């Protein structure tokens, strides 16, 4: 994720496109706000979205600004190792549909489902499991949101030539305005617009990558004499690191609540038939920029056509500013803002839902007027995250790194396996969620404080995912007599479907 300053982008075309983009987002937000009348509208878009909206919104929620700025910069630094973060995308949407899509959507047919922890609570008859999942979500959401707001602040700063504090506050205000007023209903329809912008930007930039670089072959021929390891299938960090990325980001995709909870919003469960095709296509198109800019900047620097980058995060801005028309740069930076805002909106929605819906249920309470309180919670989370983003760049970097892994280790076993295995028990789910939270927080903190660092090739996310999985199976097996009692009859119908 972007944490270093971008080069200045303050040009009339860029500013004009950015203003037009924010205007469209504001209009969609205002429209959605008028239609948001209930907690169901606010948190799950009234369970009324269609297939295309689901597919594009899922893509937009998955891809943050990292795909446009941080990702290409990471490829520039470590070669093809970085590609393993997105390599599973060709597989995970379909696998996810088989593993989770149908059962999550059917859960919403038989029970009221507002959040992913709702699904966990219903599956295991366990307010404790629901509450723990909610805690994990809140921790990860604040960190993730702070990272994204910092990135958004850097983009606003670069485009409008304001200081970083103003950039963060402006970016937060715009995103918060439509998130708090229209909730996820505003989110999915802005996602539809934002996803289209991101996909268009990516395709156009990739075309320029091929033109400027002389095709993939030309780019490879520039790089190989200077740095053959860059184009090794494992990149510069080797097979363990690369395959660990593939494992964490591949299997971990089955536990990302900001994407999964959109399944609850689909109007017709049978429309799931086409969702992997559309979501995969949208993702693959939008990731072209991630791959293309990363390798072409390396090739241009290797061949002397571009000076070496001062910061890897300059890869996208410098390529755009030097080799593409200014209008395309403007669209891409609108795309970056779009990617960040769509992800922030999704996080705010699930974070607010965890605070107002899941945590009260964990202690046997139901808050009145969840819509009103949801709006307040959205605002609180956004302000806390913005405060973190303003306070400390290093703190943001620390909080941002473990979001994906925390989601993965706490939710994948209990959901992806638990919704498909009647033998999974409440104790197994609670133990695995607790393991995921504990291992992630302890080891990330130890690493941040430089007390203990895992060996190269082993990430904390990977370690916590492995341990939470094994704990889930182990504890479920040890408490297997409880399995039948942990499953309500209507939930068993869904598991057997």
């Amino acid at each position, binding site marked *: 994720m972007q944490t270093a300053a971008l080069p200045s982008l303050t040009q009339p075309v860029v500013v004009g496109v950015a203003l037009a983009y924010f205007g469209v987002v504001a209009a969609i937000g205002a429209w959605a706000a008028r239609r948001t009348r209930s907690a169901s509208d606010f948190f799950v878009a009234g369970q009324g979205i269609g297939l295309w909206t689901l597919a594009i919104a899922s893509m937009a929620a998955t891809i943050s600004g990292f795909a446009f700025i941080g990702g290409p910069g990471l490829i520039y630094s470590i070669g*093809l190792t970085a*590609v393993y973060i997105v*390599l*599973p*995308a*060709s*597989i995970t949407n*379909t*696998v996810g*549909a*088989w*593993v989770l899509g*149908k059962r999550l959507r*059917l859960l919403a*047919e*038989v029970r009221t489902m507002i959040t992913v922890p709702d699904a966990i609570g219903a599956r295991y008859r366990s307010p404790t499991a629901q509450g723990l999942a909610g805690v994990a979500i809140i921790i990860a959401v604040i960190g993730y949101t702070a990272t994204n707001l910092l990135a958004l602040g850097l983009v606003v700063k670069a485009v409008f030539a304001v200081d970083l504090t103003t950039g963060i506050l402006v970016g937060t205000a715009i995103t918060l305005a439509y998130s708090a007023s229209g909730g996820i209903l505003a989110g999915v329809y802005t996602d539809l617009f934002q996803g289209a912008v991101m996909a268009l930007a990516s395709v156009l930039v990739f075309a320029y990558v091929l033109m400027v670089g002389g095709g*993939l072959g030309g780019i*490879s*021929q520039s790089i*190989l004499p200077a740095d*053959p390891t860059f*184009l*090794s*299938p*494992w990149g510069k960090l*080797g*097979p*363990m690191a690369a*395959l660990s990325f*593939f*494992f964490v980001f*591949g*299997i971990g995709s*089955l536990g990302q609540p900001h994407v999964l909870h959109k399944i609850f919003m689909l109007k017709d*469960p*049978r429309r*799931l*038939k086409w969702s*992997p*095709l559309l979501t*995969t*296509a949208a993702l*693959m198109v939008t990731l072209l920029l991630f791959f293309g800019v990363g390798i072409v900047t390396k090739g241009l620097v290797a061949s002397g056509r571009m000076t070496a980058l001062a910061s890897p995060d300059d890869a996208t801005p410098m390529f755009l500013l030097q080799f593409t028309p200014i209008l395309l740069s403007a669209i891409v930076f609108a795309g970056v803002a779009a990617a960040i805002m769509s992800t922030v909106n999704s996080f705010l929605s699930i974070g607010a839902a965890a605070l107002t819906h899941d945590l009260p249920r964990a202690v046997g309470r139901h808050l009145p007027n969840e819509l009103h309180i949801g709006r307040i919670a959205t605002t609180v989370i956004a302000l806390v995250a913005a405060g973190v983003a303003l306070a400390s760049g290093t703190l943001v970097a620390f909080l941002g790194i473990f979001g994906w892994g925390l989601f993965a280790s706490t939710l994948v076993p209990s959901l*992806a*396996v638990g919704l*498909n*295995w009647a*033998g999974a028990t409440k104790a197994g789910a609670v133990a695995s969620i607790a393991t995921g939270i504990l291992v992630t927080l302890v080891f990330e903190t130890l690493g941040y404080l430089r007390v203990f660092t*895992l060996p*190269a090739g*082993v990430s904390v996310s*990977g370690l916590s995912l*492995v341990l939470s999985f*094994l704990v889930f*199976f182990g504890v479920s097996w040890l408490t297997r007599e409880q399995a039948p009692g942990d499953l309500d*009859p209507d939930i*068993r*119908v*869904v598991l057997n*479907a």
Partner: protein
Amino acid sequence: MNDGQGARRAALGCSVLSMLLIALAYGLTLVPAAAPAPAWGGWLMALGTAGLFASLTVLGAVRRNRPWRAVAWAVGFIFVVIFGAFGAALLLAPDDASSALVLGLPLRAAIVIYGIGVVPALVLPLVYAKTFDTLTLSADDLEQVRADARRAQDEMAS
């Protein structure tokens, strides 16, 4: 291939085994004496990840007492593509500046990027769509779930 129940049981075992392989790969990095850990580690990760994807797919896609031949092909495809591509990259000799390019990339990189990054995207979503009505959720299935759930909830309430 009618025994969905048997396949699901095997998939559970495979997913545990796959995760243990990954745990072993991670564990090897903690043991300096186990060098050359990276070579073994790469193979364990490749096999474990491929096995995990395949077994989770079986768990999700295969339904009890339903034939699952079409899904079996998809599961096999997932395993072969992931393990095959990573295995080829581990086995083949490193590329250098004189290496021939395949679709613009050195051979090993091309096998991984196109083999895992592109080919499944062209196959799996279509298999999913084609088998959706018969294997995943037909209109009758949906009505049955709704009716069965309503009946179950009435029994719970009474």
